């Protein structure tokens, strides 16, 4: 079981590192997608199927589409620029894996001190997500409506202005 979850965590972390390091943005986004998939498995494993599904459809699906859309709309680099930036990029990100490994090692060996004596207040819960979402977190739902309105108005306005400036 311990091994099982460790593999899932690796499936989550490795794509994340790749997403940061990959020089090609498109590949980064695909790595992000895989990271999202890893997260989905983790969530399923943690008894949160609904959140997992949501993460899969929105986090992996919608956001990747948004990113790919944005990347395709922005100007691709020319060949020389590509070459010039490659070295620079790897020089900057080469440290990341090492730093991650060091932090991971530090956390792993101090696991007992940090997480060993945690006490959680166990609460028995017998409501479903639906009941909680509608019965207790109504203000959050209102917030979601408001934020969607903000997003819609904002993006519409920004793009209309962005175009009309030409």
């Amino acid at each position, binding site marked *: 079981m311990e091994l099982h979850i460790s593999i899932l965590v690796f499936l989550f972390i490795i794509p994340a590192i790749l997403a940061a390091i990959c020089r090609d943005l498109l590949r980064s986004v695909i790595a992000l997608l895989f990271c999202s998939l890893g997260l989905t498995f983790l969530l399923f494993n943690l008894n949160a199927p609904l959140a997992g599904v949501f993460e899969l459809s929105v986090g992996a699906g919608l956001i990747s589409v948004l990113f790919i859309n944005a990347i395709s709309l922005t100007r691709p680099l020319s060949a020389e620029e590509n070459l010039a930036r490659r070295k620079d990029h790897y020089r900057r990100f080469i440290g990341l894996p090492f730093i991650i490994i060091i932090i991971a090692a530090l956390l792993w060996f101090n696991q007992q001190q940090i997480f060993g004596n945690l006490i959680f*207040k166990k609460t028995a819960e017998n409501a479903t997500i639906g009941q909680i979402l509608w019965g207790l977190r109504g203000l959050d739902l209102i917030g979601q409506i408001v934020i969607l309105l903000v997003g819609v108005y*904002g993006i519409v306005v920004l793009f209309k202005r962005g175009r009309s400036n030409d």
Partner: protein
Amino acid sequence: MLLGFVFVPLLGAAIMPFVRKIWAKGSTYLSVVVSTFLVVTTGWIAYHNILTQNSLTLEQWIFGQSIALKVDGLSLVILAAIGLVSLVTAIYSAGYSFHPDSRPGFNALLLLIVTGMNGLVMATDLFTLYVFLEIVSIAAYILISYQTDEYGLEGSFKYMMLSAVATTFLLLGTALLFAVTGSVSLTDLAIGVKSGNLMVQLGFAFVMFAFLVKAGMIPFHAWLPDAYTAAPAPVSILLAGIVTKVGGVYTLMRVILGVFGFSKSFSAMLLFIGAVSAVFGAFLALGQKDFKRMLAFSSISQIGYIFMGFATGSPLGLIGATFHFFNHAVFKSLLFLNAGAVEQATGTRKFDELGGLASRMPITGTTSVIGILSTAGIPPLAGFWSKLIIIIALWQTGYHLYAMIAVFASVVSLAYLLTLQHSVFFGKIKEGLEGTQEVAPVFYWPAVIMASVTIACGIFFPIIIDKLILPVNSLFGLLVK
């Protein structure tokens, strides 16, 4: 009743596209009407509650326990400030030269940001606080980049990415506290965090970090001058006047009062950060050459004051902090109104290119003098009283060094504000500005409103303290630690 604070602006924003179809100019009127409604309702609640019961705490549940809203003395003061600043912003924006197509959008976003702030102020739950904080922040990013010019986009992007880090840590802290206590509502958290283990400490540090970034304290401040400077004039009024203060200062106050309580280590830390911000903010402002940028650094310095007063943890300190919050909202938006008017009239904000405008723009000049004197803390204007209360509170709680630092920062504030006044309004009129005229009434009336509020608050400060700010005191009953 309280739901109106969220739903009325939300409805206003929702019908904005239809209003625009029917009546092109209606959008501005709609947002003016809605924000007037907010001001009036706040005033009515304050008046009503003072008359009927002595406590100002109002709680409301709708749909069973689905929606919980709570207003107490502190929230009421902030609600009043929100209504006031959004009102003047709405009036000011009526004259601002937006692209005609984007004016309804601006008003809709203004109403939505007000919705977000009102919800934020009345939230009883750390996660809801986050949701509304995000509403406010996203609307603010869009509004800053509203003119889609280079500066606006740049300021907006920096603000966004630093805020993103802050929200991440806010969520992380919330998750930690949630793990330990099993709930996210402020009252449950307050019971749960008493165990005081490492997770709680970490969660507290994360939440603190998030709010300090949102409030723009040194060294987390770097986004603030950029965002304030780059925003279009009406947005910078709103942003500097209320948005970042509600997003950072109020939330921090609420979390400390509602959940964590004051501890020695917390007070020492916040006092230190507050003092550093107050002094360095003032010094940094001293070297600025741009109207809005100087005001932005001044804002950092003033928030340092608010935090110093708050950090004392004494009733007097909290009163001072709340009052200074309100005053800051009023006089800082007043100064940004003036900055906007000067930019409107002359087309520049650089001190090198401005000078002697007082003779050409008498109303703007006069109101700016009032704003500056209030900021610097000159009696009998409102800023003086709140600063005085904060300094007294610092002295009484035994932080004598910090009290002296506060006085010192106040002197530096006076220096840079006089520099501002001197280089923009007084002295000889600069070449090329001879033809400058007073801006249109729609630009100076908001400034006149704010200036009279400042004067009135200064003169009637005992009544305000007695009726509006003192109820904050009742919060201290809730404090356990």
